[in-house]
C-alpha cells in the first residue's frame, strides 16, 4: 500500500514538473538584461571575459555574498573541529616519490593558480578557480610533508586582508562612483593585462582569499 501511494505521488510530481518545464522556451533569449550584458559588457567594463564582468561588476554584490558564505563555512568548520587534539599522533612519512614529486609540483601549481586569477578578466577562470587550484597545491605539499605546517595565524591574516580590502574597494566605489563596487579606475585597452578597471584587482583579492580559506580548511581537516 505504501509503495502504491508513493508511486502515485511520484507520477503526480513527474506530471507537474513535466508541464511546468515544457512551457519554458529553451534556446530563446527572452531577457533583455543578458542581451545588454553581451552587447555592451566589453565596452562598459573593459574586461574581455564577459563572465568576469558580470560576476565582478554587474553582480559584484552577489560575489561578496559568495565570499561571505565561504568565510562562514570555514569558521563553522573551525568551530566544529575545535575540541579535537590529534596532532602528530601516527603520521607515516610518505614515500620518496610523493616527497620529491610534491616538492617539484608545488611551485608550478601555485604559479598556475596565480596565472588563472591574474588573467581572470582576459581568459576563462578567475578568483574562485585560481584559489581552488592554489589550495590543491597546498594539499599536495601536505601529502608530501605531513609534519610540516603553515601557520594558522598567517592564513587567517591573509584571508581577512583579502575580504577587508574587497569591501574597502567597494566602499571606495560607493564614495567616488555612486554605487557599491563601481568601476572607478580607468578601463584601459581591451585584451591587455592592465584593463577592466578594478576587476583584476578584485580577482587577485578573491583568489588570495579563497586560496587561503580552502588551504586552511584542508589543514584543519588533516589534523
Amino acid at each position: 500500500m505504501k509503495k502504491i501511494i508513493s508511486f502515485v505521488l511520484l507520477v503526480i510530481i513527474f506530471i507537474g514538473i513535466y508541464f511546468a518545464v515544457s512551457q519554458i522556451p529553451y534556446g530563446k533569449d527572452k531577457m533583455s538584461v543578458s542581451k545588454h550584458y553581451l552587447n555592451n559588457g566589453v565596452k562598459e567594463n573593459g574586461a574581455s571575459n564577459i563572465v568576469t564582468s558580470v560576476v565582478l561588476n554587474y553582480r559584484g554584490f552577489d560575489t561578496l555574498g559568495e565570499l561571505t558564505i565561504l568565510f562562514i563555512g570555514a569558521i563553522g568548520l573551525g568551530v566544529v573541529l575545535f575540541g579535537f587534539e590529534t596532532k602528530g599522533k601516527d603520521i607515516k612519512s610518505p614515500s620518496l616519490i610523493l616527497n620529491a614529486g610534491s616538492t617539484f609540483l608545488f611551485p608550478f601549481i601555485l604559479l598556475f593558480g596565480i596565472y588563472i586569477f591574474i588573467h581572470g578578466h582576459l581568459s576563462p577562470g578567475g578568483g574562485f578557480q585560481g584559489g581552488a587550484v592554489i589550495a590543491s597545491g597546498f594539499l599536495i605539499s601536505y601529502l608530501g610533508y605531513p609534519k610540516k605546517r603553515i601557520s594558522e595565524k598567517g592564513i587567517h591574516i591573509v584571508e581577512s586582508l583579502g575580504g577587508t580590502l574587497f569591501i574597502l574597494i567597494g566602499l571606495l566605489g560607493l564614495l567616488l562612483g555612486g554605487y557599491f563596487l563601481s568601476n572607478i579606475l580607468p578601463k584601459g585597452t581591451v585584451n591587455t593585462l592592465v584593463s577592466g578597471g578594478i576587476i583584476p584587482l578584485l580577482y587577485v583579492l578573491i583568489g588570495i582569499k579563497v586560496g587561503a580559506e580552502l588551504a586552511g580548511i584542508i589543514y584543519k581537516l588533516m589534523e
Partner: protein
Amino acid sequence: MIFITLLIIIMLIGAIVSCILKDLLSAVIVGGAVSLIAAILFYYLQAPDVAMAEASIGAALTTAIFVFAINKTKRLEENEENN
C-alpha cells in the same frame, strides 16, 4: 556528438554505482570521476569558467576532503541487520 553521449552514459553509470557501492572509498573515487566528466561536459558546452571550477573543486578538493573524512571514520559501510 557520440563522444558526448558516451560521456553522459558513463557519468550516469558512475553516479548510480557510487550510490550502490558499500566501500565508501571506492564510492568517493567514482564520485570524483563523475565530477571530472561533468567538467569535460561543461567545457564542451562552452562554459570553460564553470569547467575549471568543477574540475578543481569538484574533482580534486571535494574528493580529498571526503577521503580525509573516511580516514577518520570507517571505510566500509556497516550492514544494519548485523548489528
